[in-house]
């Protein structure tokens, strides 16, 4: 029974991490839009390439934030949560 419980904890942590990374879609689309717009701008005004590129990188970094929140949560779920939860379970069972 205990093995089953621990198995459920591990499996659900992995599933949660996978589900959290769905958030990667948003930054992907957003950064794609940003880069497309930057390419357009450079095509229209090639002399402003430096400014456009640095602004684009800044914007990409800010757009990436939500994806990174998801990444941090996924990493916590994979590397930190299982140990914690199993400890809690073992304490509750009394072993």
């Amino acid at each position, binding site marked *: 029974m205990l093995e089953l419980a621990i198995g459920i904890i591990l499996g659900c942590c992995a599933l949660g991490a996978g589900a959290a990374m769905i958030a990667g879609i948003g930054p992907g689309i957003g950064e794609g839009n940003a880069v497309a717009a930057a390419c357009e701008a450079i095509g229209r005004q090639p002399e402003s390439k430096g400014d456009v590129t640095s602004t684009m*990188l800044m914007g990409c*970094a800010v757009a*990436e*934030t939500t994806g*990174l*929140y998801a*990444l*941090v949560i996924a*990493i916590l779920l994979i*590397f930190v949560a299982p140990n914690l939860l199993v400890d809690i379970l073992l304490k509750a069972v009394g072993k």
Partner: protein
Amino acid sequence: MPSDIIHYSLFFIRYSFFLKGCVKEKMEKQKLNPKLTDALLIGGMILPIAVGALLKILLIPAAEGVEISGAHIFFTLPLPLGGLPITETQVNQWLVMFSLLFICLYLTHGLKAIPDRKRQHLAEWIVEQTEKLVKGNMGEYFADFAPFIGAVLGLSAFSSLLSLTGLFPPTSDLNVTAGWAILVFILITYYKMKCGPIRYLKSFAEPVPFLAPLNVISEFATPVSMAFRHYGNILSGTVISVLLATALQGLSRLILGWLPGFLGEIPLFRIGLPAVFSVYFDIFSGCLQAFIFAMLTMLYVAGGFPAEDYFKKQKQKTKKASKKTSIKNLEVI
């Protein structure tokens, strides 16, 4: 983490004085043999990294198979408020700082009014570029921020690049980036308070007082997002590098596994290929994150500063002061 902040603030102050003082003014004539000092300084650059590698080899047990773990804890200092663990992160961070210090010394020692060495050109270029960046993004008022931004850029970039030597990069620990982000948060709040605490509190009630809780949350989201961004990018690079190396190992075993003896264990796909990805994940990503962290620091600090009101107040103050002095002068007469 508080200890981290003290370390970094100390380092930033030292380093900023250093950049400002050394490059702009001519240094005294050196008495030592210049070649010897050069050798000593280059040794000082490489020695910290060698020490780090030695510590890693001697004190940290080798991982078996794939292992992605946090920083290794060397020992725990007993302190009144709970123990302070001295981890790989802190040790490596100090090593990077020493290495950077010696790089600065190497670049700036023996400066002349008419530069005759390449390193002086490099040092001048770095200082000029940093000042240009700061003035362009923050305005004239914040021109004194250049050394601080230079220190943030240098420390962050070199900390991330430490992963090229196989050591644990300090920026892939949340404590380090959170320490920096808290430092930046204090700076932002300080410059927001320049027009008095009442105006600072009022700024939360804009545009409608009803939105105040949301404004408070977004205020605290700034350092959190800065810390997570830097940490997440560097850590994800490390994790992907490890996974990639393992996957390539498996692939080469799958294809060459039927060969007899040691031929079957040649990691064919691990030769060179991970280096190509490391160019992106270690070099590009590390430098880009350093740039972005410095850039966001500049934007937030300059954006939070109520420039118009502050300068108006200053003008009024000087007017009042001049009036007062003139009245006093009249009384005296």
